[in-house]
């Protein structure tokens, strides 16, 4: 079998160089929906980061609880004031900071747990996997809201750290399922066998070959996870075990106005709008990521 084609004819790259991360970003920017989502989220994150510079008032200050309470939106208070005379706009701005931080931190906690648990179960497999998955089934069968009510009864005054931990600790079950499934599918891929044949340790295979290939499903889960935590935090605030006063989170601002929505509509509407758009944009972004990822594989 003589080589009929000169080697130089075939030895050239098919496409210009690009990392997988770069490809994903470019694909996200190409779609209008995910582009808009990224811009809106970017603005909200900026608002949160720059809160002390852009908030017109101190979010906890109660300048005049008689004269300045329950004011409808006006030029000096664009989002109105609450029954304690606090400026709702300033609270919503600071609320962006707190709600996003809680969402991101809690998601980091559940990602870490979920990835570790799922990866170990899927990679080691066998008996251990079976036992770990049954334990997971048990966790999954407890409704998250029921757990919350239990926590409410046990510790009525959760600190923010405890709240983040609680949200994180109850949010990793689904993700660890996904991770386990992916690891199970990937661990017999030939590049994993190749690493084994080179003499790579289990830890190396997990860290270098399996986990990097889970970035896409993890990114999807993280994006949707942040959205979910933000909604949950609002739910907890509604139940009275969310972020403690006088701190402001979107959830507890909505709650402040919830009793008199008809009269003090601005108190729930503005933080609600912020929360809904954040959650919606996160979901759009998550779906787009999933789509990009599925189209590629």
């Amino acid at each position: 079998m003589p080589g009929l084609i000169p080697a130089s004819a075939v030895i050239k790259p098919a496409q210009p160089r690009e990392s997988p991360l770069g490809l994903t970003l470019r694909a996200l920017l190409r779609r209008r929906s995910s582009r808009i989502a990224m811009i809106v989220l970017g603005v909200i994150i900026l608002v949160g980061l720059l809160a002390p510079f852009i908030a017109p008032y101190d979010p906890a200050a109660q300048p005049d609880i008689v004269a300045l309470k329950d004011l409808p939106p006006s030029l000096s208070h664009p989002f109105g004031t609450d029954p304690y005379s606090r400026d709702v706009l300033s609270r919503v701005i600071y609320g962006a900071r707190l709600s996003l931080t809680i969402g991101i931190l809690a998601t980091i906690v559940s990602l870490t747990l979920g990835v570790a648990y799922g990866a170990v179960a899927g990679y080691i497999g066998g008996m251990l996997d079976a036992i770990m998955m049954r334990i997971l089934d048990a966790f999954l069968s407890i409704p998250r809201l029921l757990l919350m009510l239990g926590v409410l009864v046990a510790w009525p005054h959760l600190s923010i750290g405890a709240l983040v931990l609680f949200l994180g600790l109850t949010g990793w079950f689904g993700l660890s399922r996904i991770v386990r499934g992916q690891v199970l599918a990937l661990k017999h891929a030939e590049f994993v066998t190749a690493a084994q044949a080179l003499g790579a340790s289990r830890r190396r295979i997990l860290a270098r070959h399996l986990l990097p290939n889970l970035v896409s499903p993890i990114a999807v889960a993280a994006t949707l996870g942040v959205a979910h935590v933000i909604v949950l935090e609002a739910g907890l605030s509604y139940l009275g075990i969310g972020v403690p006063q006088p701190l402001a989170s979107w959830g507890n601002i909505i709650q402040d106005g919830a009793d008199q929505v008809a009269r003090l509509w601005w108190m729930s509407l503005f933080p609600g709008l912020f929360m809904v758009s954040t959650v919606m944009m996160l979901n759009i972004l998550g779906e787009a990521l999933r789509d990009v990822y599925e189209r590629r594989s």
Partner: protein
Amino acid sequence: MSATARGGNGTAPLVSVRNLKKEFPIKKGVFSRQVGAVKAVNDVSFHVARGETLGVVGESGCGKTTTGRTILRLLEPTSGEIYFEDRDVRALGTRDLRALRRDMQIIFQDPVSSLNPRMTVGAIVREGLTIHKLAEGAAADARVSQLLQEVGLRPEYATRYPHEFSGGQRQRIGIARALSVEPKFIVCDEPVSALDVSVQAQVINLLEDLQREHNLTYMFIAHDLSVVEHIADRVAVMYLGKIVQLATADDLYREPLMPYTQALLSAVPVADPKSRKERIILSGDVPSPASPPPGCVFHPRCHHPAKDVACTKIVPPLEEKTPGHFVHCIKQPPTTVSWEQQKEVGGVHPPERYLPLAAVHA
């Protein structure tokens, strides 16, 4: 004489395998009760001499890939012996096995799934150097460049990702990865089956060049006899987990004594429009390796005129018909299973030499 006893050129074999078996349990029900086993490799013995290329051919599912991976202990054998040089491969602990991995490498069939999509070409080729502490830093970079050049790729490609390359280029990357640890023995698991014919030739030529330069020993797995004919010194034909013929490439093509090999050879296309070749069409499908037929595994599909009930009763030994030419068939003389023994179990046709393709492939 057993198939492992003779070294190809008088020296001790590099790899020898005796009575290798690999079964995959079939499990069922809640408690994973074992209800059977797929006998992927069923009592296989052979050796690979230093510097030679042993071709292994057979249809998909015949156990050739499993054999290769079991030798490398990427799969744990069920029973049997595997020796690499003087090391008992099955007895090695984690640390010794890792050391052995430097000497034995594998090249894969699928150019897509055999490269980690999240690693650059440089990182892929470099991994073996890191694991075995062969080089680091700038020395490792230099070695990666050298390896890439050796397989016909530009050193600049080290910073690119696998998806940017064609099938043939990806196979070259896989070859560079295997070469990085300076192995003595490489299992080539259908390295060209997924490639275009023109690219196949280039990759095979590359493998041959590398073999010469680095004094490599290959176990070359393929399902295509014409590919193996070109590269192999000796060829083992596998069917349903067994080696049914093992001979030098010349002998195998000139004298395919095993009826199964005859059928395989008759399926190789000949690039001559005038050649009116006799075809042996096998009837039926390959039986399930979970319940291989008794006696000779090939008997349900065999076209040997002397086939009879003895073939269903006696498991044919892989026996030497002419020097260095081993065949698994009690109907091709000479055989150690005497005619009397065959008659005893109900045989009616005495062994008879049958070589329908001799003229075609002379």
